[in-house]
C-alpha cells in the first residue's frame, strides 16, 4: 500500500515536471532554447578577454573559475563556511563514539603495496588541479576532494594508519583566515570585499588573473583538510582535544 502511494506521488511529480518542461503557453524560456551569445554569460566572456579594456576584469581563462572565485567569491566564502560547519557537526556527532572502528576484512597485499605508489600520484594530481584551477577544468573543490580521497585510500589500505587531525585543523584554520585577510586587503585597497587587487597579466599564463589562483589554492587546501578531517572522524571515531 505504501509503495503504491509512493509510485502515485512519483508519477504526479513526473507529470508536473514534464508538463512544464515543454509548455509553450508559459512566458518562461523553453528547455534547450537558450542562446549563450545573448545570455548574461557572454558578458563574463567579453569582460575577461576584451582587448579594448585597459585591464581585463578577471584575466582567468576558465570562465567557471572567474564566476566562482571572482564575481561570486563571497558566495564561495559562504560555501566553504557551510563545509566547515558540516565538518564541525561530524566531529561533534562523532564525539559520542569512543570505540575505534575496525574492518571485518584485512587489507590485502596488493591494496597495501599499491597504495604506496598511488597515494603520492593522487595527492600530486590534486595539487596540480587546484593550482591550475584558473586555466583548466577543475579547481579548489575537485582538487581538495582528490586530496581527501587519497587519505580515504590510506585509511582503507592500512589499519594502523592515523592522520594527525590537529595538523589538518591548523592547516584549515590558516587557509580560512588567509582568505578573509585577502578579502579585507581588497576591502581596504579597492573599496569592496575580496576585490581583485593584483595585476591580471596575460590570459592563459600560470601567474595571471590576480587573486583568483591564490584564493583557489587556499580553498583547495581548506577543502582538502576538511574532507580529510571528516574521514578521520569517521574512522577514528573520536575527537581530539
Amino acid at each position, binding site marked *: 500500500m505504501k509503495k503504491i502511494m509512493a509510485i502515485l506521488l512519483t508519477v504526479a511529480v513526473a507529470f508536473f515536471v*514534464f508538463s512544464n*518542461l515543454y509548455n509553450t503557453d508559459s512566458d518562461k524560456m523553453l528547455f534547450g532554447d537558450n542562446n549563450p551569445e545573448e545570455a548574461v*554569460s557572454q558578458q563574463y566572456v567579453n569582460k575577461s578577454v576584451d582587448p579594448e579594456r585597459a585591464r581585463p576584469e578577471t584575466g582567468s581563462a576558465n570562465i*567557471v573559475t572567474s564566476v566562482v572565485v571572482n564575481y561570486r567569491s563571497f558566495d564561495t566564502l559562504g560555501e*566553504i563556511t557551510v563545509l566547515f560547519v558540516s565538518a564541525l557537526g561530524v566531529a561533534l556527532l562523532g564525539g*559520542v563514539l569512543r570505540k575505534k572502528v575496525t574492518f571485518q576484512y584485512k587489507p590485502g597485499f596488493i591494496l597495501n603495496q599499491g597504495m604506496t605508489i598511488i597515494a603520492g600520484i593522487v595527492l600530486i594530481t590534486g595539487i596540480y588541479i587546484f593550482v591550475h584551477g584558473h586555466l583548466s*577544468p577543475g579547481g579548489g573543490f575537485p582538487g581538495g576532494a582528490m586530496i581527501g580521497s587519497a587519505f580515504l585510500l590510506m585509511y582503507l589500505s592500512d589499519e594502523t594508519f592515523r592522520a594527525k587531525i590537529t595538523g589538518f585543523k591548523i592547516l584549515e584554520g590558516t587557509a580560512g583566515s588567509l582568505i578573509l585577510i585577502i578579502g579585507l586587503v581588497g576591502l581596504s585597497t579597492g573599496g569592496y570585499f575580496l576585490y581583485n587587487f593584483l595585476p591580471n597579466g596575460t*590570459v592563459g599564463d600560470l601567474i595571471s588573473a590576480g587573486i583568483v589562483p591564490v584564493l583557489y589554492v587556499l580553498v583547495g587546501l581548506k577543502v582538502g583538510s576538511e574532507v580529510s578531517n571528516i574521514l578521520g*572522524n*569517521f574512522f577514528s571515531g573520536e575527537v581530539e582535544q
Partner: protein
Amino acid sequence: MSQYLYIGLMLVGIYGLLSQKNIIKLILSLNILELGLNLFIISTGYSGGNKAPIIVLGNEGGYVDPLPQAIVLTAIVIGLGVTAVALMLARNIYKKYGTYEIDEIRGDDDD
C-alpha cells in the same frame, strides 16, 4: 535528449525517499535525487556543439553557458556536507539501536 535520463534519476530518488525504510538507502536516494538535479541544471546550459567555457585567445565564442556549472559546483559541495552529517547521524542511530531499519527503531521503546 539526455535531460529525460536526468529527470528519470531525479524521480528514482524521489521514489526511493518515499518508499524505502533503511536509513542508508534513504541517504543513497537523497544522493541520487541530488545527482539528477545537478545534471539537469547543467544540461539547461548546454547548446549543441559548443565547447567547454575555457578561453583560448584568438578563438573566443561558442562556449556553453558557464553559469549553471558554477551554481552546480556550489550545490555539489553542499551535498557533500549534507551526506557527511547524515552518515554520521546514521552511525549514531546504529550505535544506539543496533539497526538501520526505521520500523525496528520505532518498535523499540525500552531505550
